[in-house]
């Protein structure tokens, strides 16, 4: 465990020494932004909208007391979405999609000697292959989380109004009541931390793959599993420290 963590730190450090030219890294980062960001919009949208919808329906199912105003449903959907569901669930979804893609891609490059080819050319393969992926993740995860927040609240609105659980005006009243802007900041901090964890853990797993196709699969699975555990741990630590 300690040895693996040490290797991880050395891996992170190796990315930052002998960096490639900024122009090269910038172009690679933009390419990765498309792969990590744009290509994930659909899955993030679907998951976020349905989570918002289900949250709304389930809260309304549990709020049976006539003493509690219906607008509470909107309020709770907003709070749950911003504080937990959008950043954490989106990051877990992205750990599955982006994390496995990073680990699988790098693992395949490793076993087919493409990483060695870069090294022989005198190119710092960690800097060239991994740094743009981490930077792109850090740039894209917060944007995807913001999108997830919006769509989740919208999903709650549609589910609530279409099922008759809550009226549109009550839902909007709940959404607007007692809003704490810091919660958005907290969610974005979480998304940046989760982005770093998912991309760096997945890259570490993929970069050091040895063997063949079976090991690439194992690296992808390991990347997703470890990323999710890291997200949940970090989620707890950040909540304890920042809230």
């Amino acid at each position, binding site marked *: 465990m300690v040895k693996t963590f040490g290797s991880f730190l050395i891996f992170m450090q190796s990315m930052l020494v*002998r960096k490639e030219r900024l122009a090269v890294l910038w172009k690679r980062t933009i390419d990765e932004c498309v792969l990590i960001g744009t290509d994930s919009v659909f899955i993030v949208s679907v998951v976020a909208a349905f989570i918002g919808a289900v949250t709304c329906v389930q809260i309304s199912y549990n709020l049976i007391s006539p003493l509690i105003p219906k607008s509470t449903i909107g309020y709770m959907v907003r709070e749950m979405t911003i504080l937990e569901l959008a950043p954490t669930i989106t990051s877990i979804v992205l750990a599955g999609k982006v994390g496995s893609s990073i680990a699988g891609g790098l693992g395949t490059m490793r076993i087919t000697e493409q990483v060695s*080819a870069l090294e022989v*050319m005198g190119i710092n393969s960690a800097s060239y292959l991994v740094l743009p992926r981490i930077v792109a993740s850090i740039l894209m995860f917060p944007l995807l989380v913001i999108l997830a927040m919006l769509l989740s609240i919208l999903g709650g609105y549609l589910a609530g109004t279409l099922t008759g659980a809550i009226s549109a005006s009550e839902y909007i009243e709940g959404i607007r009541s007692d809003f704490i802007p810091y919660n958005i900041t907290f969610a974005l901090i979480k998304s940046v931390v989760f982005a770093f964890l998912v991309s760096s853990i997945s890259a570490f797993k993929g970069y050091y793959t040895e063997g063949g196709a079976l090991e690439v699969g194992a690296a992808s699975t390991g990347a997703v599993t470890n990323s999710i555990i890291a997200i949940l741990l970090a989620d707890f630590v950040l909540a304890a420290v920042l809230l």
Partner: protein
Amino acid sequence: MIEIHNVQKSFNGNAVLKGINCTFETGKCNLLLGGSGTGKSVLLQCIVGLMKPDLGSITFDGTVFTNNKVDIRQEIRRKIGMLFQGSALFDSMTVYENTEFPLKMLTPEMSKEERRDRVEFCLKRVGLENAGNKMPSEISGGMKKRVGIARAIAPNCTYLFCDEPNSGLDPATSIKIDELIHEITHEYGITTVVITHDMNSVVEIGDHIIFLHKGEKLWDGNKDQILTAKVPELREFIFSSSLVRAAKRVDEESEGGLEALANEPLSEV
């Protein structure tokens, strides 16, 4: 010239290279010959810097590579071209982009037009001038090797390393790849090191041959000397080839031997 001095390498206490001393000469096809597990690939990885030897030194034209400053090692690495066993082409790039890649990365001062001219020249040199737009998944194994060679020579490499360039290729394609490597070596006067266990390559391009056995250098010489070498391990290696054994049998059984057979017109053979 590449000089290897007392290079040793072990894995978990198992010595793979036991103090190798040899020289790879400039302008020649230097072959590292030996069976599987004799340390050829490990030695090559030590030479190109993918692995660090436990002991010993490697010198490129008088400049020490092992344990030298990172800048100096990088400078040497930029003069190295390498053809990998599986070609190691970048899957996401076309043949053209693969060839252009080292130029883009290593020579940023080159203009786009200069790069294009160089890539077109290299692809033409390996006979792939019409395959630039193809993806690696769309071309044959032999073509991949050619692209690998084009990519290796694109930045005007001084040292060319080929790790089993014939693996997975049919005999005719193997000969073409061997010829290409040989031609390029002599044309540009570069130092070429080829790992092989293919006897066809040995007799085709072996200007200088080093035979490794169980992590030790047992013999070195050239293609004219190898068949008469007296080292038992080398003789066993050479004559373990089915083709050589068959030729030897034909030589013994046929009237006048192989020489008489070779002089007959092809239609009568």
